[in-house]
């Protein structure tokens, strides 16, 4: 018989370590975990880095040349030279109309028959700009950009009736992202998505897996405490999420050429703060449902989709309806994305970071509290 044993109620580092070793061994042995933690983030990052771009470069535009005078050719050359347009030169409007209906082009610039004559007589000529109103944002962009090209061209011509240049010249500069490259704010957002996936979706599976495979029962019949159990579920995925974030940041800087103007300390502090609600939500969903399928579905709907749609990552929050704006305040990623974007593009702005970190920790606390409430050492429902 074994001798008297120590009381086991207290937190025991040795048991935690044993559970961690087990958890890591399972992660290493399960290829799907790696798929979610590494392959999926890379896929997302490259998708947002290369595939999706909110910049309107290379928009297809048709220039209909009803006139072939030198000024008309000069204007069409200006359109070709614009980086925003990829120009097809056509001879008649009917063809342009067909292409617009077919969705091949987003806009038409018509240079009319008397264009050359008007220029010749010293009058400001007129052109027609037609856009595809079925995509309003693109149409707006095409209209204003086509107008801009025309005005730049006109400014170089000595027209008597040309509008006088204003006495005050407004010169626009975009700070922090001078090229207004959408990639610069999409990639930090993608990193937030990646942390949501690794933090919430993976943890959503882990406790439910123990229930489904019947190991929870055996574990609960050992002297392990529930605090040790929950800790053993958080720690591995915390590090896994940080690792996958680190890979993403490295790729963002090296491959996508993003600046990283903040400090690494700030990056890890902010990421850790965000992982608290991320891991907490996953854990809560997992413990409450005890079913991997349901947990992953809820995890997806409760974390991934809001992060995607409501965090200001793709759609700017100020342009949302007011009641939806109110909802965004309970999405933890809302506090992460501005911080990340600032870290990349501006630098350490602690006056912005600290309130965001505080909010993320608050949500984290709520989820952990709920997780402890639902993880009872009991099979009673």
């Amino acid at each position, binding site marked *: 018989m074994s001798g008297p044993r120590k009381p086991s109620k207290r937190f025991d580092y040795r048991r935690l370590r044993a559970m961690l070793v087990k958890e890591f061994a399972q992660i290493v042995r399960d290829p799907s975990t790696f798929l979610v933690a590494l392959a999926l983030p890379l896929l997302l990052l490259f998708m947002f880095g290369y595939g999706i771009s909110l910049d309107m470069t290379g928009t297809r535009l048709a220039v209909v040349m009803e006139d072939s005078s030198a000024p008309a050719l000069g204007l069409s050359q200006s359109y070709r030279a614009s980086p925003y347009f990829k120009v097809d030169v056509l001879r008649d409007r009917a063809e342009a109309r067909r292409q617009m209906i077919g969705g091949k082009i987003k806009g038409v610039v018509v240079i009319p028959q008397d264009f050359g004559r008007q220029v010749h007589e010293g009058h400001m000529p007129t052109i027609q700009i037609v856009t595809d109103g079925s995509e309003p944002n693109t149409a707006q962009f095409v209209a204003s950009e086509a107008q801009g090209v025309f005005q730049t061209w006109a400014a170089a011509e000595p027209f008597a009736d040309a509008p006088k240049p204003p006495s005050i010249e407004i010169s626009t500069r975009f700070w922090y992202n001078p090229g207004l490259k959408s990639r610069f704010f999409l990639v930090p957002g993608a990193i937030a998505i990646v942390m949501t996936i690794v933090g919430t979706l993976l943890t959503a599976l882990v406790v439910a897996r123990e229930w489904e495979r019947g190991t929870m029962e*055996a574990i609960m019949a050992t002297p392990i405490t529930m605090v040790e159990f929950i800790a053993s579920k958080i720690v591995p995925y915390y590090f896994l999420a940080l690792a996958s974030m680190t890979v993403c940041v490295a790729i963002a800087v090296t491959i996508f050429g993003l600046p990283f103007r903040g400090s690494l300390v700030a990056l890890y502090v902010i990421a850790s703060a965000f992982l608290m609600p991320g891991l907490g939500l996953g854990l809560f969903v997992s413990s409450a449902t005890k079913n991997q399928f349901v947990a992953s579905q809820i995890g997806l709907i409760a974390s991934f989709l809001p992060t995607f749609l409501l965090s200001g990552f793709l759609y700017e929050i100020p342009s949302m309806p007011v009641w939806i704006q109110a909802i965004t305040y309970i999405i933890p990623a809302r506090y992460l994305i501005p911080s990340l974007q600032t870290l990349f593009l501006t630098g350490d702005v602690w006056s912005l970071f600290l309130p965001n970190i505080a909010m993320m920790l608050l949500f984290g606390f709520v989820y952990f509290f709920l997780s402890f409430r639902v993880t009872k050492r009991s099979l009673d429902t």
Partner: protein
Amino acid sequence: MPVPAALEPIASAASVVKRFPGGAAPALNGVSMTVEAGRITGLVGPDGAGKTTLIRILAGLLHADEGEVAILGHKPIEMLDQLGYMPQRFGLYEDLTVRQNLDLYAELRALPEEDKEETFSRLLRFTDLARFQDRLAGKLSGGMKQKLGLACTLVRTPRLMLLDEPGVGVDPISRRELWAMVQDLTDEGIGILWSTAYLDEAEKCDRVYLLNEGKLLFDGPPGELTDRAEGRVIQLTGFGEARRPFLSRTLDRPDIIDGTIQGRSLRLLLRDGSPVPEPASFEAGAGTRIAKGQPRFEDGFIEILGGGPKGTSALAENYRVIPPSDRPAIEAKGLTKRFGDFVAARDMDFAIPQGQIYGLLGPNGAGKSTTFKMLCGLLSPSGGQGAVAGNDLRHSAAEARASLGYMAQKFSLYGELSVGQNLDFFAGAYNLRRPDARRAKDAMCEIFDLGDKLNMNAGELPLGFKQRLALAAAVMHQPPVLFLDEPTSGVDPVTRRMFWTHINGLVEKGVTVLVTTHFMDEAEYCDDVSLIYRGEQIATGTPDALKEQAVTLTESDDPTMEDAFVALIEESDRRREADERDAA
């Protein structure tokens, strides 16, 4: 076996009541019991009796609504250090190796580092798993998983071990080995609670608690229950009548309360106080002989439950007569199924004449269900041919399926639908026309006594009723062929008797039955059986013929079907090992 003189109770439960939300009756209804040091205490009963609930309460995983539970005088939750608990699914991490599983439990139970090597090598020797230390637990056979599960609970010798149905689904050889291992543990003074639905295991316990529907039916040494049937078991041989109709007729006699087929003989239990009847009174020819039989624990159980059912099946009386035919109703010719490199079933060969019961016996994972699923058209064979009611599986699988009734393992019903909705669904699935469907449904309700349960969700039915409903769903369209996959797994013996009464009746109407089972005594109902082991048929013949083979192999004079099974599997293992040696 040395038993300590003073038997201190290691664990005790007093008048425990446990209700689950939504459950009509309490899962445990005033159960009291004790587990003593150095003894194997059996917790016996069919599925749903409350065994697992009681074990979980003792393990501190559930709270009793009423009553007291104590381990060594303390609350269970305070005594987890002294407890070894093996849940039904063993609680192993299948994606970890044998060694990693042991390591985990050793750390969780705070095994001193310096004792580790010695403990592990002792446990690995004890469980014969030393060779498999680096194998993933998920890749172990059922029997090896069970031994590893046991080892994990033993990393620090506990005072109390709770084993929840450790023998279920494992082949008889592994079950016997496990029993021997656990018996060794009693020498160390460990108190063992062994829960089981196998009544033959109950007979070997030092003391048993017999549970049924949450109530304690019996408590004491198993022999005491068996003794109640002393002198009342008779063996009938030499009767000049087909055994199934004869059993049915015999069970209708007032002085017989239970009877089963044992190969060519009948085993009967007499009503208490009835004299042993004259052979002539059975009116089955001059050759009829009566011999005394050995009572078993099961006889006592049936006796407590008030005897088995009578012999006439209302289901069979309502069934159409299947026109006789000369061609085999079910045929397998070299049926083979491969999953990658793994051959799940190899060269299955049998032809089942119409109006017979054919049994596929074997441990879990042996290939029974694979063979079965190929014949129902649920898996397409990798090789060979099969036919059901003359319909070739390759060319007319749909026709083959239409001519059979299928009762799946675990009684696959729609748990969220009511009993009535389930019956409606299966009537629709089998294409019954509306008036036929209504007639069939009414008949099933009456035969299986489902009338007052029509609006209950199937998932909430007691197991016995689930089984009846599953059978009802399978026979609503009166198919000529029935496929039964583990049809009596876990149900109490009286429900099992009722089930076989129906099946026997149907067979008399010309229905052909293919059944898989790991209850060896049920094999006795079959006309022919095939023993399946490691994907191959290792023996085929009548139950009596297989037992005779066992007589020559083991030189025991009256082997049970299980003895025969063990002997034949050991013989097959010997042959395979010899072949492997020759090949090497």
